[in-house]
């Protein structure tokens, strides 16, 4: 078995493009679910409208890269407001139903034959990332270092995406940290606990929930940008419901309502996934595992990750960074 490759890809997964884009999406989801208690099951749609906003602006309309980013941001804000107006005055579960349906509507519009000329159908759009890579300060080549015999190297394009991505993660984490320490964040957390109590203390619950929905959506939409730029393409099915569910998994794994919970959760999630995949692929190749073939390994890793997460939730339900006392209070209510 090629342990060098396994270790190298696993460590790289801890900081890779997937980790970055899911962590950004999960930071947004943390604002929604972790702090405000909004059950948003349509986070993938925020990433989708951003990715497509950028892609369509640049490829179809021929406008510059920065205009594309602006269009994507505006699209995310509009989506948040459209989702929020009818649902935020209702009970929490309605938001869940409406967001999951809206996310599917968005995805199906992107892949529809009707709009193929705009969104590119199920193939999606490509060729919109040149403006981004034109800003790349890294000259062509490989970057990174060798950890003993293990090479940890990224190409100059990936390096640029990762640099921007991790700066964004740091920025958003800092913003969330500042906000959640402030009286504004206190109102959000109070809404999570009991809306009526917050109303009785003179705060407009609707307004705060809308602000939280927009903030989390705007943060999450940067995950869509990173996806589009990192893979130099967008496809509709990437922004399906399972993307949202992975982000929920990461959030709970890392610890909801913790500033670094979603980031840590995303790193662990991808490290485990890549580790399982590589170990099993190598083991099957070396004939150590005989009851699987290489095609089945892909599915098997999801089963093992799922099992791992179940065990984690049983033995550490508050997540890795969570506070055990909070879970105890929850159970007693």
């Amino acid at each position, binding site marked *: 078995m090629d342990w060098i490759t396994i270790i190298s890809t696993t460590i790289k997964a801890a900081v890779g493009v997937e980790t970055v884009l899911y962590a950004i999406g999960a930071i947004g989801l943390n604002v929604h679910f972790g702090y405000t208690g909004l059950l948003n099951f349509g986070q993938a749609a925020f990433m989708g409208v951003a990715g497509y906003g950028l892609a369509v602006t640049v490829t179809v309309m021929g406008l510059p890269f920065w205009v594309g980013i602006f269009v994507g941001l505006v699209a995310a804000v509009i989506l948040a407001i459209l989702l929020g107006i009818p649902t935020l005055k209702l009970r929490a579960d309605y938001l869940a139903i409406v967001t999951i349906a809206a996310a599917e509507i968005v995805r199906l519009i992107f892949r529809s034959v009707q709009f193929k000329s705009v969104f590119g159908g199920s193939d999606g759009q490509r060729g919109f990332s040149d403006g981004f890579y034109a800003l790349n300060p890294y000259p062509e080549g490989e970057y990174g270092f060798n950890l003993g015999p293990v090479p940890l190297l990224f190409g100059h394009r990936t390096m640029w995406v990762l640099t921007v991505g991790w700066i964004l993660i740091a920025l958003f984490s800092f913003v969330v940290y500042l906000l959640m320490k402030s*009286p504004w964040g206190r109102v959000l957390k109070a809404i999570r606990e009991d809306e009526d109590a917050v109303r009785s203390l003179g705060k407009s619950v609707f307004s705060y929930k809308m602000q939280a929905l927009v903030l989390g959506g705007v943060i999450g939409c940067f995950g869509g940008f990173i996806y589009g730029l990192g893979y130099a393409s967008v496809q509709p099915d990437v922004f399906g419901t399972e993307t949202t569910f992975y982000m929920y998994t990461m959030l709970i794994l890392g610890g909801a309502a913790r500033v670094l919970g979603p980031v840590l959760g995303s790193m662990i999630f991808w490290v485990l996934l890549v580790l399982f995949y590589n170990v099993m692929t190598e083991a099957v190749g070396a004939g150590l595992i005989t009851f699987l073939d290489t095609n089945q390994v892909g599915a098997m890793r999801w089963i093992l990750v799922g099992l791992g997460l179940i065990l984690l939730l049983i033995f550490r339900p508050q997540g890795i960074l969570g506070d055990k006392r909070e879970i105890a209070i929850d159970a007693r209510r």
Partner: protein
Amino acid sequence: MHDAETTATTGGGIADRKAAALNAFKDLARDPGVPKPDPILVVDNVVRRFGGLTAVEVNHVEVQRGSITALIGPNGAGKTTFFNQLTGFDTADSGTWTFNGRPMNGVPAHKVARAGMVRTFQLTKALSRLTVLENMRLGAQQQKGENFWRALIPSFWRDQEEEITQRAEELLVRFKLDAKRDDFAGSLSGGQRKLLEMARALMVGPELVMLDEPMAGVNPALTQSLLGHVKDLREQGMTVLFVEHDMDMVRDISDWVIVMAQGAVIAEGPPSTIMSDERVIDAYLGAHHDAPLSESELEAQLQEAEAALEAEIHETEGTTPAPGSAPEPETAEERQK
């Protein structure tokens, strides 16, 4: 115990406020909707229907400023629904009401609170996963740091936050919750949560405090302390309107009692005499309960009672009840409560 304490600290003020409140009520008629000398809250023709059921139908009622007014009535009288209408937590089908002369119908709950009319809930709404101190801070109004953009720069709101914290801590000391300031509110006992909810409502700086069953689920040891705090509110110039079932408490602290039954206000009066009012007895026990019985009815009732008595004697002499059977009626009764 608490009384002695407050008397010691506020001196003669206590007697004045109570006397002033009682004086205002002295010559009032006992009719529903009687006008008060200085009403803070005036309600006219509030109606709330749920389908075919009319939950609230109040023609006219006034609440005297600076008094403790109790709102009582049998189960299902519409007291809590009425509370919800007034505080904007539910929309009335029709009617108008004014708070300090300002019309309040159709005003959303958070604006009602901002206007100075703050309520608590029958089932306490402590914000469980916030600390006691954070619960308190949340109650403060006009916080600069509750604006999104200003929240990002702590220097905008830090000074105000310190003031709020100081005010919160003073209140916590008064409510004997200062030892719990850094605990999660979810870890408090039922009575402590009631105290916290009341203290938190005071952070808003209300003129009218509306307490929905402040004694429900509070252990007897804390009852006295809670009563003291309610009286304190009046001493500090606030008006209190509360819903309560416990008649002892109503008698002890209220200056005036409004009785509701089947959605309407049926009687008003001072607490000492209200329970002997015919209309109130009828509402609680049903009309005609004391109508004279005919000779044959009396006879039949007497026989029935004797038979029941005999059966009971036989039972206690004959069989010892099974261990599980005895406590059953007690728990059933408790459940009904």
